[in-house]
């Protein structure tokens, strides 16, 4: 599994796409993702994220696009689109689009059967895929009757069963309650630790630091590409693309206004704990904060940089 995950997993070069009705969805999109990387793809509604995803396994390839895409070192062959799922599996945003068989087992078996895998192996894969998403033994359940969180996980199982090296997901955590969301994030982390290459579309900026090594902002074209830290530090680009920085990072900006010594703002609550610990240890076990005349104006300016609803915050704090 990890063996193939070396080298360039996804190479997109100067991809352009316009829908038949004339909507330009992608323009000069170029990026590379290395095997084993996990990348978050973010951008406002309508930025072209889902459109890009559909290009990666060739579904939208030949129709109206220019540019080149290589998956695991090979360009997509329009005649072999149906073999792409061996390399790259795509989990759609709405699990209802992916579950169209009466029984869940049939849905999970669907991909491997299409890939021409033999019966016994298909059965094994169905069982292990369901188990990995925490749905062991659900083979004979009616997909349509599953809960929202179960459906999301089931949709992932239908892709895992094809054992692709690369998995791309469209908003995996949307519409989930916090528990299901946490469970889903755990599944993604396990996949990551197994060396799968992951591309995750999400609006959930607070989940990104846990999930992704790298963040690409797409807004018809790639407007930023770098580590989570690099991308979240460029607030201007971020806010221009309708996005936000993680809440913990915002809060550490506040702490800085209270003279908390910190060059590198933590992005997640775990790294925040680490940051506090280190700061305390560097200070001989102590951290000293204090309020000064510029504290409020600094907080204010941080908020107005980060936020889309500026007026409210000014008002609250002033």
């Amino acid at each position: 599994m990890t063996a193939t995950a070396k080298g360039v997993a996804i190479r997109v070069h100067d991809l352009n796409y316009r829908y038949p009705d004339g909507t330009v969805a992608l323009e000069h999109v170029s990026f590379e993702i290395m095997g084993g990387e996990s990348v978050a793809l973010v951008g406002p509604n309508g930025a072209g994220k889902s459109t890009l995803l559909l290009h990666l396994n060739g579904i939208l390839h030949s129709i109206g696009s220019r540019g080149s895409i290589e998956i695991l070192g090979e360009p997509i062959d329009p005649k072999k689109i149906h073999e792409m799922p061996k390399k790259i599996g795509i989990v759609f945003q709405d699990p209802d689009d992916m579950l169209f068989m009466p029984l869940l087992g049939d849905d999970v078996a669907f991909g491997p059967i299409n890939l021409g895998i033999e019966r016994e192996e298909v059965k094994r894969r169905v069982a292990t895929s369901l188990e990995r998403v925490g749905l062991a033994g659900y083979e004979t359940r009616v997909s349509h009757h599953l809960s929202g969180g179960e459906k999301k996980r089931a949709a992932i199982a239908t892709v895992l069963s094809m054992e692709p090296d690369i998995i791309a997901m469209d908003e995996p955590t949307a519409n989930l309650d916090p528990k299901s969301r946490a469970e889903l994030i755990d599944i993604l982390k396990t996949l990551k630790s197994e060396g799968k290459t992951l591309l995750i579309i999400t609006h959930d900026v607070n989940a990104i630091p846990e999930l992704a090594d790298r963040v690409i902002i797409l807004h018809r074209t790639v407007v930023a590409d770098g580590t989570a830290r690099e991308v979240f530090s460029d607030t201007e680009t971020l806010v221009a693309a309708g996005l936000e920085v993680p809440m913990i990072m915002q809060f550490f900006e506040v702490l800085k206004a209270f003279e908390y010594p910190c060059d590198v703002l933590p992005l997640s609550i775990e790294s925040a704990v680490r940051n506090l610990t280190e700061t305390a240890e560097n200070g001989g076990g102590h951290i000293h904060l204090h309020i000064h005349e510029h504290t409020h104006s600094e907080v204010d300016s941080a908020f107005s940089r980060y936020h889309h609803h500026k007026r409210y915050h000014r008002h609250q704090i002033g």
Partner: protein
Amino acid sequence: MVHISDGVLDPLLWEAGWAVTAIILVYALSKMKIEDVPRLSVITAAVFVVSLVHIQMGPTSVHFILNGFAGVMLGILAYPCIFVALVLQCFLFGFGGVTTIGINTVNMGIPALVAYLIFKSGTGPDISSETRKKASLSGAIAGGIAVVLALLFLAAELLTTGEVFLETTVLVVITHIPIIAVEAIFTGVIVGFIATVAPEMFRQ
């Protein structure tokens, strides 16, 4: 299904088609509750969309007709659904004809009603995942017969219009023979599916 275009049929026939359709529509609309409108419309929209799907079968491409399915699911209310779908098909795509909307609705709609009767007598009142096999089989028979009947209607109309249409009729019937099988399998599968997943759809 080939819908008859304008200008082909003898005026008497398409005028009669309008008359029959008007009578059945008035009756069906009186049976229809205003609450049924959204449900029927969404199903009509689904029938419309699905009937645009083409599958390559050897040299020809076939598409779903779904009149049997509509009948099985909706009974008499399938008639207004088919009428609405045909009108929209004509207006949105120029499929079929304007003057022939009445007769085309007859060709699809009456077999749909027959399909409903076949299905009902084949399954009995209670449909659930236990009686899925039986429902599926009745559905397949109903779906197949709905196409056969529609073809017979079409053939009869073309032939009574003039012997010049003999070859056209033969051609239309021959090209639609595979569709009888396709539609039977399709209706059977879909009825079995619904019996497993959402049997309440049969009890409206």
